């Protein structure tokens, strides 16, 4: 599974690199600047492949292995590109007791992928998250920025259809 995902070639552009260099020069003298730099870098590229981490290492002087350690520690940093639409199912307690586990299972079945994977056409990726704080609407899922609440398993097909 890892090997397959690793095969996505890096397609960073010159513009993206210029943006990143700008961000690094702005932030690198702050104390504890690595996290903000990585967050901005992920905004620019959508993920943090080793090529991007190498640029950050060269520019800041922070060893690459430390950067890799930080990237892999936090769940919001991704080494792999996400799908065009990232579906994130809340598996926080309030959603779980209201059946979000079933929603997640149905999505896996419907999309034919496991959590953390992207469909082969690059359209959908599926993740779980721990509480977005919309517990009043449990169970919820998000598709990119859109939030869907008070769901049942039967709503899943309709939601996917909106993005297909």
């Amino acid at each position, binding site marked *: 599974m890892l090997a397959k995902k690793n095969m996505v070639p890096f397609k960073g552009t010159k513009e993206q690199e210029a943006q990143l260099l700008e961000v690094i020069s702005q932030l690198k003298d702050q104390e*504890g600047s690595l*996290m*903000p730099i990585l*967050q901005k870098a992920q905004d620019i590229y959508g993920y943090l492949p080793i090529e991007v981490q190498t640029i950050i290492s060269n520019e800041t002087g922070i060893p690459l292995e430390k950067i890799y350690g930080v990237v892999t520690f936090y769940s919001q940093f991704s080494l792999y590109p996400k799908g065009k639409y990232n579906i994130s199912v809340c598996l926080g307690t*309030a*959603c779980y*007791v209201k059946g979000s586990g079933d929603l997640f299972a149905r999505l896996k079945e419907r999309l034919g992928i496991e959590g953390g994977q992207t469909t082969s056409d690059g359209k959908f990726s599926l993740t779980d998250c721990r*509480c977005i*704080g919309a517990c009043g*609407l449990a169970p919820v899922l998000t598709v990119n920025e859109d939030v869907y609440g008070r769901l049942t398993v039967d709503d899943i097909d309709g939601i996917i259809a909106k993005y297909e």
Partner: protein
Amino acid sequence: MYRSHVLVCGGTGCTSSGSQEIIRVLQEEIDKNGLTDEVCVVKTGCHGLCALGPIMIIYPDSTFYSMVKPEDVAEIVSEHLLKGRVVTRLVYDETVTDNGIKSLGETAFYKNQHRIALRNCGVINPENIDEYIGRDGYAALGKVLTEMTPDDVIKCILDSGLRGRGGGGFPTGRKWQLAKDLVKGGQKYVCCNADEGDPGAFMDRSVLEGDPHVVFEAMAIAGYAIGANQGYIYVRAEYPIAVERLEIALKQAREYGVLGENIFGTDFSFDIGLRLGAGAFVCGEETALMTSIEGNRGEPRPRPPFPAEKGLFGKPTILNNVETYANIPQIILNGAEWFASMGTEKSKGTKVFALGGKINNTGLVEIPMGTTLRTVIEDIGGGIPNGKKFKAAQTGGPSGGCIPAEHFDVPIDYDNLIQIGSMMGSGGLIVMDEDNCMVDIAKFFLEFTVDESCGKCTPCRIGTKRLYEILEKIINGNGTLEDIDKLEELCYYIKENSLCGLGQTAPNPVLSTLRYFKDEYIAHVVDKKCPAGVCKALLNFVIDPDKCKGCTLCARKCPVNAISGTVKEPHVIDTTKCIKCGACMDNCKFGAIEKK
């Protein structure tokens, strides 16, 4: 001057229900009806009643409209705002009485609440500093800087009895005193823990979204008390609206000079930086949080040295949670005695709880310490939906435990909750009914901690994984009575030997369910049954021959052809083929299929 203000909730709950669209249509309709100069639309923070979102309150008469849809807006504008007639069908049911509409404060949901930390949430526009100032905002900072010495401030907080609202319950004043006295002078830091990671708790998010300035003001007061001029707010990246509001508020606070150099013309300077988390639960632990701000993997450090002596960047640091800070300005303005007059002997003031799960009124409530679970669930929460029976209330998130019905009348405070095997935690309160399996819930929390364990210390990294595996074995019907004993033994081992709070409390969900619901564990292990009907491996789907009409629908829906029978004759499920997907049960129109 506007003759009417329309407050629309812009918190995460209502935004998820589409309140931004409501605001857009509302402004459009107001303009169209020529009311632009008469009616003001205010986007506020959370009102607490998230289940009824999107929420709209119209002042001066404070009519409370719930579950408003964009297509309702034109009617509200033309009827209510233009003609002064309430649109009764959209009014929150609870406020409708035979004698007209009663105020929101009289409804069961709000009546038992007492709002201190949430006093501005849902009342002011969080993106306008003037509205905060209009509600005594920054008056406490002014009082502190001009009338009080740092020791006065610390004494006031100590006397108030305020304890950390993030879950630990450590006296806040004591923390400040240590940071002031342990190391004299030099660089110090004030941090705010806004990495609200407990799933099901969202009070800090509501404060940040609905009243961001209160956090700045309190941090500046803390800075003055301990002698720090720099603060950091570490907020989780999963809260984009909160981050946006904090950025706006920070800019305004600097423009008004309430943050920055020489505040109120005194020689006290204080500024705040925002740091975003990146999705690691352990960063809610204080030492891990500081390690993360420093730009490292968010792994906890051993204590001592405590942060008050050696914290962020190796300097003395205090770290308080958002809700704790939200109480500070009110304590300064109203005095320690006022705050200490609320609550129980050792837990003063109020606590915000996020009600979730199987309860009618999901949302945020702020109650005086010492309120009973019964009041919270039956009165404020409106009871359990669908006539189901209450089984347990879970507090304290993955570090906490489940409280059964037998403790319904225990007054909620820090010490009582610990005594009954749970903890206050950050204030998530998830209600479970008879359809929730407690072994499954324990496994759910363990899955969470296994996932979120940072891996630094062995008892937590490996111990939680082993706990999870034993629970999985029990749920799959392969457990033995020895497994239950082993589970308990391992729990105590992990509690005693883990480095930080995450590991030390990770076994709590298992221990508390074992304490109150051991019969459910035994049913899984000995009888190979799941009494709540959740654990699929232990369930069998059966057709009741008396109810089955032989319509053949279930046989057609079954994905593995496990159901056989002739038309108009009772059907039968072959349990060896059945994959327990439940499709037959969902589709049966006669309720003839049961899980046993």
